[in-house]
């Protein structure tokens, strides 16, 4: 597989821009680690999202993920250096049944991804949520819902209000985003950073706010529930 797809750790430490404040030096061995698993149907963009966050850009080409890929990035939150580990899983159903459960171990948060241009990937969400329940002992693990590919406006099949309703039902915050949109670098960033902040502060991620208010975060003043395409 592509070296560039699999060098996300290196990329994350050497990339400039958003990463400049935290890159260059490996985190001390004792920095906290947040382990986040990313799940959802095949081709919804799990690999692209995790790559975007860890390497700071959209990958040129991605292939089907076989098994589990791993990417990581060090960030600094309120002066604390934290490693965010993203476990990117295969979408095909057969892999999750017997393969992936090992990687649910000690997971701190779950990111469910669907493709906004593919209603079937949205309809699969209940089974992913169920799957997740079976693997995770703790019920209070933060979970978020991400609708990807919002840049393909003319092809949207999952309306925001429908997704929002679903997210509310399952007590998850919803984010609509695009891993691809080049003008949108902050957004994917914001999603994972939101999660990281929540994990750091140990607060439950979902507060029963009206969706449009988003989630209030100290360093992320922007509302999170938007499509910034």
């Amino acid at each position, binding site marked *: 597989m592509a070296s560039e797809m699999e060098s996300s750790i290196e990329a994350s430490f050497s990339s400039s821009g958003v990463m400049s404040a935290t890159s260059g030096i490996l985190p001390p061995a004792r920095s906290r680690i947040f382990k986040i698993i990313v799940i959802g149907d095949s081709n919804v963009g799990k690999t692209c999202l995790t790559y975007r966050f860890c390497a700071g850009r959209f990958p040129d080409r991605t292939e089907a993920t076989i098994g589990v890929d791993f990417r990581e990035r060090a960030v600094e939150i309120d002066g604390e250096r934290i490693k965010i580990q993203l476990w990117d899983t295969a979408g095909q159903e057969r892999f999750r049944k017997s393969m992936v459960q090992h990687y649910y*171990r000690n997971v701190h948060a779950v990111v469910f991804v669907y493709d906004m241009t593919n209603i079937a990937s949205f309809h699969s969400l209940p089974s992913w949520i169920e799957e997740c329940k079976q693997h995770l002992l703790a019920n209070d693990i933060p979970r978020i819902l991400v609708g990807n590919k919002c840049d393909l406006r003319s092809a949207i099949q999952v309306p925001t209000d429908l997704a929002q309703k679903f997210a509310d039902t399952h007590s998850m915050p919803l984010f609509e985003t695009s891993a691809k949109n080049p003008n949108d670098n902050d957004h994917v960033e914001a999603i994972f950073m939101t999660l990281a902040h929540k994990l750091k502060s140990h607060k439950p991620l979902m507060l029963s706010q009206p969706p449009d208010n988003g989630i209030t975060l100290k360093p992320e003043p922007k509302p999170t529930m938007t499509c910034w395409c």
Partner: protein
Amino acid sequence: MALRSAQGDGPASSRWAGGTLKADFNAKRKKKVAEIYQALNSDPTDVAALRRMAISEGGLLTDEIRRKVWPKLLNINTNDPPPLSGKNLRQMSKDYQQVLLDVRRSLRRFPPGMPDEQREGLQEELIDIILLILERNPQLHYYQGYHDIVVTFLLVVGERLAASLVEKLSTHHLRDFMDPTMDNTKHILNYLMPIIDQVNPELHDFMQSAEVGTIFALSWLITWFGHVLSDFRHVVRLYDFFLACHPLMPIYFAAVIVLHREQEVLDCDCDMASVHHLLSQIPQDLPYETLISRAGDLFVQFPPSELAREAAAQQQAERTAASTFKDFELASAQQRPDMVLRQRFRGLLRPEDPTKDVLTKPRTNRFVKLAVMGLTVALGAAALAVVKSALEWAPKFQLQLFP
């Protein structure tokens, strides 16, 4: 149909270009080509010799040779008509969407520089072959990564022959990966740690403490490394090797890679993420020939039957992968030079117990093991692995072998 002839998998290959040794290499290569053609042209075809050629240094050397030898290794008659279906598979296949998604994304499998139009044509053929095989074999289930295997055959032998070869392969070597669930695949992965343990207990213990699991090797196993190696020459070299060997050989090869990277692993932080990350990034400059011969040696020293218990313990599962490898018809009886091996094998076994069918329990028999080691020297370990494995894993074959 030399789809990638421009790539030149011949003498320019770096591992062969030994500077001053070039003349020597050329002579060696020429000799090997002659031997391969001799085996091909003998009547009946000397399949056992072809197997040894596929395993030994350099493998089958060129795609032109592969087009002739791969069908022999899979016992395919190239004159038979290719599998066909009159149905509109794209409309009726439940797997079509998944196959389409995976094939469309598999751009890297095609030679760099190939015109888009040609590549797209091949991608369409790839989809057709996969759907055809799935339709003809309803017991087989598509998995992501299967397309990485099929594309290798498509690029080497072309569409018509690829369908025949992959169909045979899918019902044999790949059979376990194509079950309704991946339980058997997982079981095969469970051989990885016991193999490592036999050779390097320290490395094994380190990996166990890290709880790294075995999923880093999943794509290696189920794509025969086609998914992770970017140089196609390395992929086809490994396919030569695997086509000539027992279906479990890829897991031995995976173990050999891990063992080869011992120091890097031990230098890693002892946690799942670090070790998984390190191992899942496969180095592109592996010493393939050395590793192939090492994998063969390991297979002979620690055959699957010896590891079965450990592997099962990994999963607390009773069922062994072996159960699905029963039909090893590929190693068919008419393959004459196997006779030589058989006789030697028998000769070595006979002093111990001439009446008992010792081959049914080779792992309990020290003499068999010694015999194996002895033969290893003479024939090359991996070449022997073919025979030995067939004995252990295929009752049917055994009957043919020892009538």
